């Protein structure tokens, strides 16, 4: 039977695009099928209010892999990551806590709150850099299967084993603690400054249905430091043109390598015959044939909706059903007539060019989580705010601004469901929270867009609105992501692969799943060497 393409990539999010770019680069005929009118998935920039461009969902570039930037030559395709250097945490006391680009300035600021912490910060930073270096190799490799006895898998395990064996004893203990403790407990061993601990631990709970005192959240603290050891790539920052700018750059690279990208092309079904993938059928009934289908959607969408579940092993389906999404965050995007004026640090200072975090204390975050545990959104949520127009004035009309507010917790399974009234109440809670530290905010709003987890699910298809395509919790990482035994991008159906954030190493605008899945597909089709010019991550 004639094939239309070598590979069909389902979903034009950043991972699907990265996947397609690598496959096309290796000489395969690739098509990307995107349901929406634009590519990007959660990494899109849209003009929601005339003249104001929003990074509607995902809002900062975190950990975009340097090898992807390099191998796809993304700067040539328009990628420009602007520095997001400071963190500003306004406090209810009228004071604030901030971290700045100059480490000495950060130390002096921390000193203002706790002289002890100011120095612990240096030692802590050293430890975390060593930890990040220990864990970083995992990001660049396909997880070996710990239960397999094949020589390849054993070799992979052995390399990893040796790698961890080479860690100094004290580092091994610290790594064990990071893997088991809560972010709050781990930070309490080092620091006493509440806003500092809270702002740091918030990065450990983003996208999970866990609180800062939940065990296992310390590990995610590492992610920030992993960004740091890739320092010169400025992998942590704000993309010019919004996060859609990242997707556009990857799409442009993919097209240059010959990939075809179709929008408004929703896939209705993955066609399977005798355990082999045959291609896909679109919503309008069009069939597109290929021997390989790479799906960037999450496992629920892929295996419980697009594939006929009867064609899958029962235990596999059960594992997919057990996979936890539990979306816990929302997004509020504001078009502003004027900048917010913070009581604790008035004026349009440099603090507005970094992230603004409403996380005054661990207790504050844990209380926000308490609400969510019992089915409510946080009355006083954790907010992570950026003002993209401060970094890239093109995001709003001259002198006007856009504000992106990440909101946690807003549970998908909110009591009473996500009605319009509930959405309105969430928006009010967010604005009220912000108005407590920046009273002019309410009068500055020209337009507000409130996006609940249900909206996320509906608009871009992320199940239960989980921004990482499934919780980034320890029980769902590495060789357990998304389900035990199927962490190597392949699936029980021959020729069907997964390449989204639900696979190792997970979510964020990292691109690693898309790349690793492409390498796996190429390896299994005997084209591995063409894929990377010696660019394989060393271990």
């Amino acid at each position, binding site marked *: 039977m004639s094939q239309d393409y070598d590979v069909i990539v389902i979903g034009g999010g950043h991972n699907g695009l990265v996947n397609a770019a690598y496959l096309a680069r290796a000489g395969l005929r690739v098509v990307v099928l995107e349901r929406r009118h634009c590519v990007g998935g959660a990494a899109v920039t849209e003009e929601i209010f005339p003249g104001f461009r929003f990074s509607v969902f995902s809002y900062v570039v975190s950990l975009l892999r340097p090898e992807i930037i390099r191998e796809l030559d993304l700067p040539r395709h328009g990628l420009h990551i602007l520095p997001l250097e400071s963190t500003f945490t306004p406090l209810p006391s009228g004071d604030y806590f901030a971290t700045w680009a100059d480490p000495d300035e950060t130390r002096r600021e921390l000193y203002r709150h706790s002289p002890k912490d100011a120095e612990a910060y240096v030692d802590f930073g*050293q430890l975390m850099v060593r930890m990040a270096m220990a864990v970083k190799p995992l990001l660049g490799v396909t997880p070996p299967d710990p239960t397999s006895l094949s020589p390849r898998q054993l070799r992979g395990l052995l390399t990893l084993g040796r790698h961890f064996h080479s860690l100094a004893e004290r580092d091994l203990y610290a790594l064990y603690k990071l893997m088991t403790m809560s972010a709050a407990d781990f930070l309490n061993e080092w620091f006493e400054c509440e806003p500092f601990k809270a702002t740091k631990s918030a990065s450990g709970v983003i996208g999970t249905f866990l609180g800062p005192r939940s065990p296992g959240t310390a590990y995610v603290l590492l992610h920030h430091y992993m960004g740091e050891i890739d320092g010169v790539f400025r992998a942590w920052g704000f993309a010019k043109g919004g996060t859609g700018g990242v997707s556009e750059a990857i799409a442009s690279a993919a097209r240059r390598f010959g990939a075809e990208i179709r929008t408004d092309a929703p896939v209705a079904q993955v066609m399977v015959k005798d355990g082999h993938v045959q291609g896909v059928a679109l919503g309008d009934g069009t069939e597109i044939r290929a021997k390989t289908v790479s799906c960037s959607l999450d496992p629920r969408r892929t295996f419980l909706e697009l594939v006929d579940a009867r064609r899958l092993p029962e235990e596999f389906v059960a594992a997919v059903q057990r996979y936890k999404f539990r979306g816990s965050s929302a997004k509020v995007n504001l078009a502003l007539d004027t900048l917010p004026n913070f009581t604790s640090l008035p004026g349009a200072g440099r603090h507005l060019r970094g992230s603004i975090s409403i996380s005054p204390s661990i207790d504050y975050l844990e209380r926000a989580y308490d609400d969510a545990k019992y089915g409510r959104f946080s009355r006083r949520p954790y907010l992570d705010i950026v003002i993209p127009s401060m970094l890239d004035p093109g995001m709003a009309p001259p002198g006007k601004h856009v504000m992106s507010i990440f909101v946690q917790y807003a549970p998908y399974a909110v009591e009473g469901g996500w009605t319009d009234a509930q959405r309105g109440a969430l928006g009010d809670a967010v604005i009220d929270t912000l108005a407590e530290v920046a009273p002019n905010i309410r009068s500055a709003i020209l337009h507000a867009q409130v996006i609940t987890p249900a909206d996320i699910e509906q608009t871009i298809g992320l199940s239960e609105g989980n921004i990482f395509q499934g919780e980034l919790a320890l029980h769902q990482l590495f060789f357990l992501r998304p389900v035990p035994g199927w962490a190597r991008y392949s699936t029980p159906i021959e020729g069907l692969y997964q390449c989204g954030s639900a696979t190792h190493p997970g979510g964020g605008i990292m691109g690693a799943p898309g790349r690793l899945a492409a390498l796996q597909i190429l390896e299994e089709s005997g084209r591995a060497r063409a894929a990377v010019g010696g660019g394989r991550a060393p271990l």
Partner: protein
Amino acid sequence: MQGAAWRRWAGYVVASSYELTHDREYAAIRSTAALIDISPLQKYRIDGPDAARLLDRVITRDVSRCAVGQVLYTPWCRADGRVLEDGTVSRLEEQRFRLTSAEPNLRWLHQNATGLAVGIADESETLAALALQGPSSREILSQLVDASLDALPYFRLTPACIASCPVVVSRTGYTGDLGYEIWLHRDHAEPIWDALIEAGTPYGLVPTGLLAMDIARIEAGLLLLGVDYISARHAVIEAQTSSPFELNLGWAVSLEKPRFVGRQALFEERARGSAWALVGIEVDWDALERLYTNIGLPPQVPTVPWRTSVPLYARGRQVGYATSGCWSPLLKKSIALAHLESASARQETVEMEVTVEHRRKRALAYVRRLPFFNPQRKRA
């Protein structure tokens, strides 16, 4: 050449030079007097019955031999004998000291103070400091202070008054010249600066930035943390750390003291011998000139002090690296501070890498004892 650029120093912004070039500022250090704002230093007040005991635990020198009014220059180490930092300890009173350092040490002091009756106060932000350095510094300062400076020996201090403000004057500095450091409350910094400038201008006093001071300290063989060595606190790998012996600071290690942090490791290292030595390097002028004349250029020297790592070779093999250097306007020599493998430190010459018109060359260089410059007036 270089503009009056600002640079960061421990969270403060300071001048590289106050004029468009630093030449006049450097000349002032060696010929008249220079006034340098060194307030970004960390300063700790340590007092109480166990103050001396705490410092004796932490630093490598013997505090029991430090008289009231005396200042000690000293390194301090981690338990494995690797240097955390170097700085000064001043004995202000029998039970009262001041520790100065380039980086924060409050946590380290507290960690070592367990069980001791001692108070540790961080005075870094309240205490300002000015360095008045150069041959005329004594004459200038004598006009302003009530105390007699003639009787103040090298590395001693005295309380005094300037512009009706209480200060402490220590005969110390980072230039290797006759000079003083004045320790004062930050609220008094401006009147004291003004008084010094007014009294000093007839003597050629010049406000001076970090570039000129950097040249002077290289000539004086004084180490700069983070440039000439890395604190064990910041080292990611063991090879980045140094022991005091490896930094030419063996003279400041009192192994006779029964207990201090790092003693056992240092005791063993002294018996075993150290892997590295810190030396002075002087590039042979004729060799350097030849490299340039060979390609038809006049010899060139850097106009500002440099602080990049430069390889040193002996018999074709790399045996060390220079960490900072400059053209010494006074000595008329190209000099550098360098780390050499111990076996090579006893050699008379090595070769230093120099980049001549975009190409890497090697020039003959002499291994020198530090300091390069040590005028009698410094101690007189």
